[in-house]
């Protein structure tokens, strides 16, 4: 087992070195950060969709409190960094709008249906969860499709960009954000069932490690941790490979996005951490004595519905200006008001998604069909 783990460690280092040689030291570091995300999320069982489900179903606030703790830690470092280096570092901020709120609500529902959010779907695929792997295929397609309709969703109405910094300045904005997190934490502690209020040490360690990686992400990439952009880019790459012309679309004609499309995936900072995340989850799964049983097989229509739910997950994440990572985690921790609205809408959507889950994850045995 030790030899296998050493081998897996060597594999991870080899991938980092290969990417650094092929695309430069920044790319290598970002893949290493991504591997770190995967190790923490899978190895310490830190998630987003699962804890939200536990809060809704069992009034278990521990996982969600750990998420808020991690966001607070990132904010404490990110606000001063962003204020001192406005030319080199950018926050994850987006406008609040009708389409954005609707997208976050749908995303929250879809992530409960496929049992994985943006990061969760990558972790699930990397750790060999068939539902996650199928959902990821749909996610890539949906995130691409979502880039084609951004103008429509924006036309439904949106506010100017609002951030904690624009409301209260850099220092005041940080205190406002920390106060908001404390307020939500207090509400969760009030609503939580007895014995389900104090996160275990494992979750505090995971939250601290995740926060450290997210701060490194900001410092190295110049922008916060994200997931969805990379997946949409992969979809766009595949479309162009089959002869699609995206130069007439508003999103891909934008010089920033056109550059990403014309250059290697290894130049896209989000793709690099996404790839690392999948690999990190894979390393954890292979490093376990027992990788665990695969999820129960689904009926054929169940697999089709998971694929469709993945498409919805990807599409809605574009409507919502990000997923649980780009909008919720990175948005709130870098001052975006849309991150807070995303949180409320996606949490409400999660409650609906939990009700829909049994209609999507149809077990094979119910129909006697081997999946």
């Amino acid at each position: 087992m030790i030899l296998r783990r050493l081998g897996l460690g060597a594999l991870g280092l080899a991938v980092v070195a290969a990417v650094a040689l092929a695309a430069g030291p920044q790319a290598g570091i970002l893949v290493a950060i991504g591997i770190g995300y995967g190790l923490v999320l899978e190895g310490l069982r830190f998630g987003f969709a699962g804890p939200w489900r536990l809060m809704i179903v069992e009034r278990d606030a521990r996982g969600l409190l750990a998420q808020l703790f991690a966001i607070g830690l990132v904010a404490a470092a990110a606000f001063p960094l962003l204020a001192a280096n406005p030319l080199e570092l950018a926050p994850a901020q987006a406008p609040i709008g009708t389409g954005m709120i609707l997208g976050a609500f749908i995303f929250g529902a879809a992530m409960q249906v496929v049992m994985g959010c943006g990061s969760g779907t990558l972790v699930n695929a990397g750790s060999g969860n068939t539902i996650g792997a199928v959902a990821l295929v749909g996610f890539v397609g949906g995130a691409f499709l979502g880039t084609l309709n951004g103008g429509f969703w924006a036309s439904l109405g949106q506010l100017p960009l609002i951030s904690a910094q624009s409301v209260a300045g850099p220092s005041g904005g940080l205190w406002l954000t920390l106060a908001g997190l404390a307020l939500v934490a207090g509400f969760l502690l009030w609503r939580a069932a007895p014995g389900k209020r104090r996160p275990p040490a494992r979750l505090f360690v995971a939250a601290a490690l995740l926060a450290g990686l997210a701060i490194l992400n900001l410092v190295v990439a110049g922008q916060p941790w994200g997931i969805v952009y990379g997946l949409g880019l992969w979809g766009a790459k595949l479309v162009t490979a089959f002869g699609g012309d995206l130069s007439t679309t508003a999103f891909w004609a934008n010089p920033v996005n056109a550059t990403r499309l014309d250059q290697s995936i290894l130049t896209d900072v989000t793709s690099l951490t996404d790839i690392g995340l999948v690999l990190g989850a894979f390393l954890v799964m292979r490093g376990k004595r027992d990788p665990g049983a695969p999820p129960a097989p689904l009926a054929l229509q169940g697999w089709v519905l998971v694929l469709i739910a993945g498409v919805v997950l990807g599409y809605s994440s574009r409507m919502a200006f990000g997923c649980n990572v780009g909008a919720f985690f990175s948005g709130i921790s870098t001052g975006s008001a849309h991150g807070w609205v995303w949180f409320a809408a996606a949490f409400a959507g999660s409650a609906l998604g939990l009700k829909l889950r049994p209609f999507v994850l149809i077990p094979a045995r119910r129909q006697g069909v081997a999946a």
Partner: protein
Amino acid sequence: MTRPRVALLAIAALAALVVWDAAAVGLPEPFRFPAAIALGSGAAPSGAHCTAN
């Protein structure tokens, strides 16, 4: 299908995407690599983020 097999398929698909893409558009020029760390580089962030449309 076992977890290791599904995970290997996912990793293989990702690897295939990266290799195919590198063959199609080429790898970045070594002398035009971005700074290893954005902070202190003096350069504006050139990446795109999911919060931008």
